[in-house]
């Protein structure tokens, strides 16, 4: 038996990881991982069938021995496997943090990765990086799981046979030499300067295409037409009035984290004289940003053009005539314009990448007219390639058809799956003599390639990327590639006959750029690695000149309109095999494990459809079957479908989940188009939505408090007179020591799910699968509750993060018969897994229903690579125990122990919970409520807005909320769009 196999069997838990360094480099271990392969797709998602009857028997025995050696006669002898040579920074038992960079649509997001004895377990935003400001989102948080995904491609394949990098690189070089000018590389967008330089070194005539099914082509084209080749950057922290035209700017695109942070900074009304920005939003279907809007107008996607045109005309953009609008639309436009003009220089108009180029062009003109340019809108030299969408793919296709392509390298982009349906791309690719596929997975596209080269995950790679503002940051690996994966830089270098390592290539490139070397360079290099950014690399500002004439956007289409959108969780589908993203409930719909055909209540009624019906969607002769989901607040005559599902070769988790919307997505209407036919073909589709009921049932005051800014400034008398609730028992003394508490600002929460997945990564929360979610057994410790208030056509949409409230009068504790959940001296409601017998009584008695129960052995105790991801500071729960949020107890303990060994107090902000750390809008604040100077105390002191949930129950929660505030335009009245 190999040492590694031996380790994996002999050692579990923390002692096992010590052997990691050796494990990951050993070929035997990789074979072991490779052997993890074929299994029934459904099985991984269904823990019941995942293990056989007998194995389960074994599992329960094993677990019982975990639970204090109940069954085992004696403890088994365990091994300790220390390093052979211990890296000097590594201290076993202590985490290290390294700066690195992740690509989002090709742009760099600076991250800090947490590493335990050489294995990364979690990523956080890098506070010094302009694109992240220390925040992250669900996509970034989940990327760690992708790295450990056992279904990742684990070897180089030539014509279906395993091969080696030596052979591959040689073959690449010769093929490239042979192909000469016929070389074409198509990759997902990529801003790596090193890569660009390498591609340039390929034989003359060879071209590098970039394709992203979610590309912001419209934006760049529109910008090009209006102001020339430049990138636009908004400064929402300077904007008092924001008009978003179908733009979900706080959650989509490489700028989302930054924009969310800036936007939120203008929305906090904590001061004595509270001020707030005002957001006008026009969009076809509710998005995260839409839920923050003060005036949300649900319009067909094709109607946004006219709205833009109307605004443009109103603010006096030359040569633009006002189109005819519906009454509600013109009302919305009128007041928006008035507001904008009242805040010239302090307002911003932004259009979504899904809107046609004309709209973007007009938006530039509008911002200019409102002279926001220079204040809230900045222009910089272009970063990355302008053309990364349908046009570049079309160009490649025509080249192939013309027979100009003799060698095609398809890198990180799954063309066969995500190219427009009318391209029939598979056939086209087959025309190319030599096709090389490079990617993390063997996917739909890799089947067409002679060569498949398994990619290294970004946490395994050297590289460099530029942020949205041009800032360069270096990508440094946290771990040697688990499966000997390569980087795109390696591949291109090999084609250029350059055999040096990625690290050298990147380093040499920058030596060339800086023109320094030796100590001078190494010093800066080390600093860049440590800080995660290369100083002074931001793109220079430009002052472009505005075009003089503008094309009017296409008019609103009639009839049913289909709208294609990136899935809020798995986006373009490249991460379809990521269980965390599959299971995180999508904002607003709370759907998991599926995409749906979304209809507004009125339209659904008109079409005689209801939630769970199965419909056939037909567009341009192509059709797919989709389950119906009715979404309040969506525009009528609109059917919204999300891309990214219906993968056929994603892996055990992601294959055959949902339907493939790409299959009906034509290049002519990439984001929305008319002429879709919808016919009912079935019903009662199992939709695993985590929230069945979205009406507050008149419990607003106890659960979700919302007021307008005006009500906050001059409050009319409170209709709920707050009476003090007394307790028959004397109160426990919490006046001494650390007393932890949390405040969640509902006013800036857009329900983006960053906290949910961050918590999952931090606390080893298992994925349970669609069936279990459908049964109501999801495991997330923090969830985002969504409520709709007002009428179904134009509802207000509330997002409320809910985790354990750490009640001082915890109802769960008194009912536990074995004292498995009790209070500690710092006011945290401990959940002691190893004491829990599993009566579930605590959950029944929890008014917030934040407790989660392991109905089966949900945590995968078998797959080695998944065990590598686990946080060693948090117990991996076994079958039959209750679990819940504990304010990241492990982080508190670490901070306390450090502080006490150093003989000091914990500083405010020293303990940051995972959800708080991830939150892009900093809605979550955590700290010691006994420290009057702490931020959380100041927030809890805002008695006008601060409240605790269900306080009539006198549970005395430690988590409090800041009421949702809206800043409606008095002209429009009401508190929500169109009212």
């Amino acid at each position, binding site marked *: 038996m190999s040492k590694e196999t031996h380790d994996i069997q002999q050692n579990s838990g923390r002692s096992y990881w010590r052997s990691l360094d*050796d494990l990951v480099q050993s070929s035997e271990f990789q074979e072991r991982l490779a052997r993890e392969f074929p299994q029934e797709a459904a099985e991984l998602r269904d823990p019941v069938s995942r293990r056989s009857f007998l194995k389960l028997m074994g599992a329960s025995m094993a677990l019982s021995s975990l639970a204090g050696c109940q069954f085992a006669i004696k403890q088994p002898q365990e091994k300790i496997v220390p390093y052979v040579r211990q890296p000097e920074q590594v201290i076993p038992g202590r985490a290290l943090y390294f700066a690195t960079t992740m690509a989002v649509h090709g742009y760099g997001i600076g991250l800090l990765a947490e590493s335990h004895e050489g294995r990364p377990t979690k990523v956080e935003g890098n506070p010094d990086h302009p694109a992240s400001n220390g925040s992250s989102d669900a996509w970034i948080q989940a990327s760690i799981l992708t790295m450990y995904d056992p279904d990742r491609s684990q070897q180089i394949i030539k014509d279906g046979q395993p091969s080696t990098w030596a052979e591959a690189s040689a073959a690449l070089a010769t093929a490239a030499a042979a192909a000469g000018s016929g070389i074409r590389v198509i990759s997902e967008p990529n801003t790596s300067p090193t890569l660009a330089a390498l591609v340039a070194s390929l034989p003359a005539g060879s071209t590098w295409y970039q394709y992203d099914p979610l590309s912001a082509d419209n934006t760049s084209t529109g910008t090009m037409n209006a102001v020339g080749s430049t990138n636009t950057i908004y400064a929402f922290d300077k904007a008092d009035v924001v008009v978003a035209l179908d733009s979900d700017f706080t959650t989509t695109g490489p700028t989302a984290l930054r924009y969310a942070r800036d936007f939120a900074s203008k929305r906090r009304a904590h001061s004595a004289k509270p001020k707030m920005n005002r957001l006008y939003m026009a969009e076809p279907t509710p998005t995260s940003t839409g839920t923050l809007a003060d005036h949300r107008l649900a319009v067909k996607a094709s109607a946004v053009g006219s709205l833009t045109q109307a605004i443009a005309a109103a603010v006096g953009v030359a040569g633009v005539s006002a189109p005819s609008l519906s009454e509600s639309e013109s009302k919305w436009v009128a007041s928006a314009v008035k507001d904008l003009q009242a805040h010239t220089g302090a307002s911003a108009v932004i259009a979504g990448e899904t809107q046609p180029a004309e709209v973007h062009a007009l938006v530039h003109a509008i911002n200019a007219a409102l002279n926001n340019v220079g204040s809230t809108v900045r222009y910089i030299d272009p970063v990355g390639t302008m053309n990364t969408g349908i046009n570049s793919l079309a160009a490649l296709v025509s080249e192939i058809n013309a027979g100009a392509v003799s060698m095609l390298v398809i890198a990180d982009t799954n063309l066969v799956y995500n190219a427009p349906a009318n391209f029939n791309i598979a056939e086209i690719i087959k025309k190319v003599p030599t096709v090389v596929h490079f990617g993390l997975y063997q996917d739909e596209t890799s089947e067409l390639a002679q060569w498949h080269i398994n990619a290294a995950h970004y946490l395994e790679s050297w590289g460099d990327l530029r942020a949205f503002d041009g800032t360069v940051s270096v990508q440094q690996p946290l771990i040697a590639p688990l499966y000997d994966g390569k980087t795109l830089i390696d591949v291109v270098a090999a084609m250029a006959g350059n055999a040096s390592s990625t690290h050298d290539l990147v380093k040499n490139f920058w030596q060339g750029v800086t023109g320094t070397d030796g100590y001078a360079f190494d010093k800066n290099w080390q600093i860049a690695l440590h800080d995660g950014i290369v100083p002074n690399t931001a793109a220079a500002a430009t002052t472009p000149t505005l075009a003089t004439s503008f094309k009017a956007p296409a008019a609103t289409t009639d009839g049913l309109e289909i709208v294609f959108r990136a899935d809020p969780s798995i986006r373009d589908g490249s991460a379809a095999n990521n269980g965390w993203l599959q299971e995180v409930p999508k904002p607003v719909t709370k759907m998991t494990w599926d995409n749906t055909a979304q209809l507004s209540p009125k339209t659904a009624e008109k079409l005689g459809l209801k939630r769970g019906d199965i419909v056939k969607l037909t567009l341009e002769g192509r059709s797919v079957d989709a389950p119906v989901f009715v979404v309040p607040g969506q525009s009528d005559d609109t059917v919204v479908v999300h891309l990214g599902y219906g993968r056929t070769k994603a892996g055990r988790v992601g294959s055959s989940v949902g339907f493939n919307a790409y299959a009906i997505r034509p290049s002519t209407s990439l984001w929305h188009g008319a002429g879709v036919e919808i016919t009912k073909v079935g019903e009662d589709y199992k939709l695993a939505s985590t929230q069945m009921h979205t009406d507050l049932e008149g419990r607003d005051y106890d659960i979700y408090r919302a007021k307008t800014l005006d009500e906050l400034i001059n409050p009319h008398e409170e209709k709920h007179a707050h009476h003090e609730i007394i307790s028959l028992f004397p109160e426990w003394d919490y006046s001494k020591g650390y007393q932890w508490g949390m405040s969640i600002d509902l006013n800036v929460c857009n329900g983006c799910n960053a906290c949910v997945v961050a918590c999952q990564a931090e606390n080893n929360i298992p994925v349970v699968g669609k069936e279990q979610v459908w049964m109501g057994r999801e495991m997330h410790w923090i969830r985002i509750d969504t409520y709709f208030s007002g009428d179904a056509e134009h509802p207000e949409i509330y997002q409320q993060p809910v985790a354990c409230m750490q009640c001082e009068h915890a109802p769960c504790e008194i009912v536990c018969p074995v004292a498995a959940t009790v209070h500690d001296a710092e006011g945290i409601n401990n959940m002691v897994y190893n004491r829990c017998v599993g009566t579930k009584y605590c959950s029944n008695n929890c008014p917030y229903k934040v407790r989660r129960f392991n109905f089966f052995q949900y945590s995968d105790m078998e797959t080695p690579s998944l065990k590598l991801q686990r946080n060693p500071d948090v117990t991996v729960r076994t079958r039959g125990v209750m679990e819940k949020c504990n304010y990241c107890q492990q982080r508190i303990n670490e901070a306390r122990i450090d502080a006490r060994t150093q003989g000091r107090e914990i500083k405010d902000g020293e303990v940051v919970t995972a959800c708080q750390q991830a939150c892009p809008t900093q809605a979550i604040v955590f700290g010691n409520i006994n420290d009057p100077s702490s931020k959380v105390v100041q927030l809890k002191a805002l008695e006008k807005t601060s409240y605790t949930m269900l306080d009539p129950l006198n549970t005395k929660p430690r988590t409090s909320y800041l009421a949702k505030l809206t800043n409606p335009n008095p002209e429009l009245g009401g508190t929500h769009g169109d009212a």
Partner: protein
Amino acid sequence: MAQVFNRRANTIARLSIFVGVPVVLLILISVWWYYTRSDWVRDVGPAHAVVQPGGGFSHQLHVGGLKMDCRYCHNSVEVSSSANIPSTETCMGCHSQVLHESPKLEFVRNSYVNEEPIQWNKVHDLPKFVYFNHSIHVAKGVGCSSCHGNIASMPVVYKTQALYMSWCLDCHRAPEQFLRPQSEIFNTTWTPPADQIEQGLKLKEEYGIRDSLQLTNCSICHR
């Protein structure tokens, strides 16, 4: 009428009820008691010494004989939860000179050359849901020998404590019984002074150790 039973039946009946039942219960209880508390089941004591790879490594020689400081090998004991098991490199630090040809050290040299880590046998093995932190204990006056015994006297290391939760609680409830001055932490032969409780209370004050209501919280050791 004929008797159903003979005279002896009375005695048998009474014995079985008034003697038999209690005796059986007593036996069952004492079996359980032995099972959960015996040194055998918890591998405590010299009889259960855990032999290490190569068979030869002796703490008695290294600590007792050579007077090496614990921290030379267990070098993260003051800064981390884990005291650290030395890497092969650490061994070779001396043994590249000392006994560098001894056959007994073959396995160490092999490990060093072949990059094959040595698999030591765990002696003190806490369940995975217990998060013991060496640094805080060492910093707050709990010496090595309080839990690990007099390592310096052990050719082959064995457990001197069964590591029951209740045993941990004994100290977390009244640390003063075990606290020692910082100078004595790594002294493997330290024995409590006559006035330990008095001294201990002083040290408890000095170290700023929290009261038992805090130290016995579940979250101190379990997460």
